[in-house]
């Protein structure tokens, strides 16, 4: 049943789509628009067809040009790479479907689709390759197409974000090339398996490892290297922004797991550093998100913060921690994608990203509101949504490793996430509907399909987490080079100090929904137009009495944040938009990594 060429087809299908779509564009615009979707979907099917042999422990090695491994290039497909590639291609298909109506009015969209296909090709190529230099080449396809996509809108901010990303990304790509060159200079081979058996961690290897850590950490957006992310995610067109925020870091995290853990075998040395940086990322990302009043920028800082969880999971280096991290990666791709699509839907209809100027959209866009609600509950780790399961695994994982402080920070960050999403919900969807949005309609069906599907998957994974976790377990097993059964940990479900059951949680949640709904129905809701004369005492807020007071996005948590103004002053002075400052942090991280690794190894 499965084709022996399925691995290469996973890359060739999106790649050919990138070349076919400009040709088709000369004939018919309609046909060109659906080409990316078809290509990603068929590549996804290729990936799924390989699932059963790979999940049973087989490693598929595809020898390109029929040259055996150390001589030629190979594609190396184990559970980890297949897991990453399938998640990526799945999200890419949703994004491509969403892009069809979203990009309809754009006359340049042919270029957009081509770049989109190339980006997916690059990321898939990075995930499937088994050769260090080939990794660099596909890494560059991914990076260059991302630069072009971020600049695509050619507005002020997109050009600026793209230039900063390009400069820092260029430096980082050079680091990676240097790392590959250092490896080649010592071992005269580029094959990953070959290298893994030869690396002895000389002082030159440490430099090379630091280069890779900075490079992949930059792509993922670990804290001192995250500056580009908050600029670039909002600047890119929404379908890309969604992938950048959700799935793009898949590549960064995958590469950390693949190269740092599996090729260098440096798990013991690097994992405490990664976990610490992960916690910092998580915390600072949320703190920055709390003060944002641009819809997409808020989501971007949350994307950074969610990455922190994943890195903590990877950095815990225990079976439970890594599977929690990988599962969170999958969940994050899902709900982050959903949230970006909702933000895109709002922008599609009202044409602004400013939270302060929105309000009351739930009356006009009920579907989008529901989707956004599901997304924000999932990202905040509220049971029974999928975000809770992976976060729970991370809490338990860090607790078991006796990183108690990390557990506390992770939980606090979840609280911060929930509160900033309350803010976004409140300012965008609830409250009073503004006059100018009276004629707003909900989004077209083609945009609803991907949003609805992702939301359903979010709930399914939350209630029945065993389903995706079998996949995650195998991927974890590939990293740790053993066969893992997270079920042995019982998902952290039934420990002596903790207990939860996803199905029970779902039932409780449904019960409360019903309860609230019944209360709402039997009681009498006070609508803004009703005279409130029966009430014993009227609270005078301000203005006319039949208005709700709509609190803008900027100052909902004023009371909470004002005492932290010193801290925020420092954060703001670092996020100052100055390229040299960002470059300084990149080089600083490099030296920090080298110093740390020298001490440890």
């Amino acid at each position, binding site marked *: 049943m499965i084709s022996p060429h399925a691995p290469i087809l996973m890359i060739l299908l999106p790649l050919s789509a990138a070349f076919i779509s400009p040709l088709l564009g000369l004939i018919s615009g309609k046909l060109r628009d659906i080409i990316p979707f078809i290509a990603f979907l068929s590549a996804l099917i290729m990936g799924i067809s390989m699932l059963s042999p790979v999940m049973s422990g087989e490693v598929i090695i595809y020898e390109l040009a029929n040259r055996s491994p*150390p001589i030629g290039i190979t594609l190396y497909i184990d559970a980890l790479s297949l897991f990453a590639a399938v998640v990526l291609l799945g999200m890419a298909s949703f994004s491509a479907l969403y892009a069809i109506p979203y990009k309809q009015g754009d006359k340049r969209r042919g*270029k957009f689709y081509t770049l989109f296909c*190339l980006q997916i090709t690059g990321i898939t190529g990075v995930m499937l390759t088994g050769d260090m230099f080939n990794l660099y*080449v596909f890494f560059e396809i991914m990076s260059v*197409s991302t630069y*072009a996509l971020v600049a695509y809108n050619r507005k002020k901010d997109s050009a600026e974000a793209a230039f900063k990303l390009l400069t820092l990304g260029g430096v980082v790509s050079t680091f990676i090339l240097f790392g590959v060159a250092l490896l080649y200079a010592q071992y*005269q081979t580029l094959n990953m398996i070959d290298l893994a058996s030869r690396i002895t961690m000389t002082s030159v290897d440490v430099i090379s490892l630091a280069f890779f850590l900075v490079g992949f950490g930059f792509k993922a957006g670990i804290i001192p290297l995250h500056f580009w992310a908050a600029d670039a995610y909002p600047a890119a067109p929404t379908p890309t922004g969604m992938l950048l925020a959700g799935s793009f870091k898949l590549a960064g995290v995958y590469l950390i797991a693949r190269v740092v853990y599996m090729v260098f075998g440096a798990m013991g040395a690097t994992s405490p550093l990664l976990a610490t940086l992960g916690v910092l990322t998580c915390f600072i990302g949320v703190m920055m998100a709390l003060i944002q009043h641009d819809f997409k920028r808020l989501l971007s800082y949350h994307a950074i913060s969610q990455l922190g969880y994943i890195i903590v999971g990877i950095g815990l280096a225990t079976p439970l921690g890594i599977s929690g991290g990988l599962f969170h990666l999958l969940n994050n791709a899902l709900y982050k994608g959903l949230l970006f699509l909702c933000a895109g839907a709002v922008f599609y209809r009202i044409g602004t990203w400013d939270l302060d100027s929105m309000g009351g959209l739930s009356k006009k866009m009920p579907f989008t509101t529901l989707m956004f609600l599901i997304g924000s509950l999932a990202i905040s780790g509220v049971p029974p949504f999928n975000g809770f399961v992976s976060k729970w695994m991370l809490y338990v994982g860090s607790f078991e490793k006796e990183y108690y402080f990390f557990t506390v920070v992770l939980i606090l960050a979840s609280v911060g996430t929930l509160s900033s999403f309350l803010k976004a919900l409140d300012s965008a969807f609830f409250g009073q509907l503004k006059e100018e949005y009276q004629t707003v309609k909900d989004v077209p069906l083609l945009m609803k399909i991907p949003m609805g599907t992702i939301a359903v998957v979010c709930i399914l994974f939350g209630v029945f987490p065993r389903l995706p976790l079998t996949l995650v377990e195998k991927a974890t097993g590939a990293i740790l080079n053993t066969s893992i059964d997270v079920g042995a940990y019982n998902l952290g479900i039934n420990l002596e100090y903790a207990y939860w059951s996803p199905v029970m949680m779902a039932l409780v949640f449904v019960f409360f929904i019903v309860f609230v709904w019944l209360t709402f129905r039997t009681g009498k809701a006070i609508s803004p137009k009703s005279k409130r004369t029966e009430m014993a005492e009227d609270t005078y807020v301000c203005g006319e009495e039949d208005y709700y007071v709509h609190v803008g996005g900027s100052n909902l948590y004023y009371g909470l944040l004002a005492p932290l103004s010193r801290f925020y002053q420092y954060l703001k002075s670092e996020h100052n938009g100055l390229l040299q400052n960002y470059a300084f942090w990149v080089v600083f991280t490099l030296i920090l990594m080298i110093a740390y690794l020298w001490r440890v190894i």
Partner: protein
Amino acid sequence: MKRALSFLLLGLLISIFMVTVLNVNTFGEHDIGVGAHYLDHGLQEAGATNLVTNIVLDYRGYDTLGEVTVLFTATTGVAALFWRERHGKK
């Protein structure tokens, strides 16, 4: 302040490289590893007298496909940035 720190970092990086990169191997007098296969068997297996071409197009032809794609990506990106509507086209 940051400027001075940047110079400091640069100096640190140079000194780190001095003690490592300079010792990576002896210039011109080391084993050539995988490369030996291309020198010994390249002509028989792939057929081109230019052995670099054998590697670029045969042994590592997939890299070249990627490289061509990077150039294509850059071209498309430049075209997207400088795109303008032609009279009566599209």
